[in-house]
């Protein structure tokens, strides 16, 4: 409850905080469009030279393509696995429901670095040394499936089961009911989950750090190596791609499912 004078203080505080939150992102976008190498204020002028530099860089474009490929594969697999798991946990889990929920989210709770190391050592132990794309897919699956699972579960819990009963009553068998009634109505959730998984895989750093190798380097790792030593805004171009992707994903999710399904922590 805020009264009018207090409201102004709150609005001011919140505005400053949002500025803080969005500053780095905005700065990266500006740097990518900046004519000069160093971002100065006042800005020196707009230019696309860094975009050109990025497009001309073999390393960057190769790793961009690799990241997109990786993300696509992971998304496809994670969406299927995560949706099936969500269906089971919401409907058929019985007394195992809480345990399975915790288990499905567990990979998100442990440090990515540790998971990456554990996988690296594990694969080596299995005799698989040049893990390449396969190893990265495996690692990314671990953190992408939980996102699909979380979003799809939220949608399934809200789903009105009487619609399925009505369909059964009218003569539809269990599979027909799922195909014609359930799926069309939850597909918004599934798509949001998929899109989230895509971006998660695309942005993933910690696990990729340990599992990437020659010829299989996702863009974030490439950028990291670059940023440790150089500083020109070619890297910022990669940033703007990520920013654009993030905005698209958020808008899609808001449209299809409503971002409030992402509240976690009760309430």
């Amino acid at each position, binding site marked *: 409850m805020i009264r009018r004078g207090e409201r102004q203080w709150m609005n001011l505080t919140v505005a400053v905080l949002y500025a803080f939150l969005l500053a780095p992102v905005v700065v990266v976008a500006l740097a990518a469009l900046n004519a000069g190498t160093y971002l100065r204020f006042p800005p020196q002028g707009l230019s696309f030279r860094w975009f050109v530099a990025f497009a001309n860089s073999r390393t960057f474009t190769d790793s961009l393509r690799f990241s997109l490929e990786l993300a696509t594969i992971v998304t496809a697999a994670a969406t299927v696995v995560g949706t099936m798991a969500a269906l089971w946990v919401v409907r058929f889990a019985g007394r195992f429901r809480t345990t399975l929920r915790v288990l499905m989210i567990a990979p998100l709770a442990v440090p990515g670095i540790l998971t990456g190391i554990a996988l690296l050592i594990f694969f080596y132990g299995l005799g698989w040394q040049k893990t390449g794309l396969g190893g990265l897919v495996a690692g990314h699956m671990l953190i992408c499936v939980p996102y699909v699972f979380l979003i799809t579960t939220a949608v399934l819990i809200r789903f009105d089961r009487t619609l399925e009963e009505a369909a059964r009553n009218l003569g539809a068998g*269990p599979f027909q009911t799922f195909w014609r009634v359930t799926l069309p109505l939850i597909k918004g959730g599934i798509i949001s989950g998929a899109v989230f998984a895509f971006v998660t895989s695309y942005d993933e750093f910690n696990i990729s750090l340990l599992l990437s190798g020659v010829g299989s380097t996702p863009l974030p790792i490439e950028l990291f190596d670059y940023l440790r030593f150089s500083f020109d805004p070619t890297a910022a171009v990669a940033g703007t791609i990520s920013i654009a992707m993030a905005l698209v994903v958020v808008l899609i999710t808001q449209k299809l499912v409503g971002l409030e399904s992402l509240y976690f922590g009760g309430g």
Partner: protein
Amino acid sequence: MASLQRGHRAAGRHLLIAPALATLVVLFVLPYLNLFMISLLTPSHQAPYLHVFTLENYLGLARDLLTWEVIGRTLWLGAVTTVICLAVSYPLAYHLARASHRLRGVLMIMVISPLLVGVLIRTYGWMILLQDTGLVNQFVNALGLRSLPLMYNTTGILIGLVHVFIPFMVLAIAGTIQSIDPALEFASRSLGAGAWRTFWRVVFPLSMPGVVAGTTLVFVLAISSYVIPSLLGGFTVLTVPLLVVRTVTELFNWPGGSAFAIIFFVVSLVVIWSYLRAMGRASRAVG
């Protein structure tokens, strides 16, 4: 629908969880068990490890002061980050939770977009801002002051960590605040409590579940961060993730790195568990 479950290919439906379970077991449970086993083997120069059982990895680390210094520093960074992040995120969460439906949509977009941009890009943004020749210092210089050292040190790391995890904290708390009946705040005000007191005596206590969830989450994420300490700290500040990765990938000491990782894992679990116990007790005291 009880009857729809019984007798209708009951076993078949349990196949739905099979792929996820397989993924978890094969790619999560087994590797971590393996990690634990490796931590009990002997390191070597010719191979990643020798199949010789030893407790020396753990003992050596426990004896080494550096181990505890790094763990302590990491936990300290995590704690400070969490507190500052809470202070910064709470107003945002409150504002979001009490916003009108339409405004909330916009705010959610602003809160979640940074999350999806990725840690690396956001850290890069901070590098541009915090460098000695970065935007912040250009501003500081313009005021006639000397450049502030905001990067390649703990300050830079803290700024980066707090910033990166704001969306998590906001999302964790906003949900809980939204479920607090606004009428309670009106009641408190009508009984004579000002805005601050209403906040401390009514809103904050009721939002505790979200606060606990958010602080736990942010703490865990902060102590696990690699990108931020490395880029914004320039490897001058050693945290556990940095040390573990270095041990494994540069020193090729897999058993040592694993042991260190597991020690850290256990220590963090103890810290978090104690925290949650204390929170649980506190919330029971409040009733």
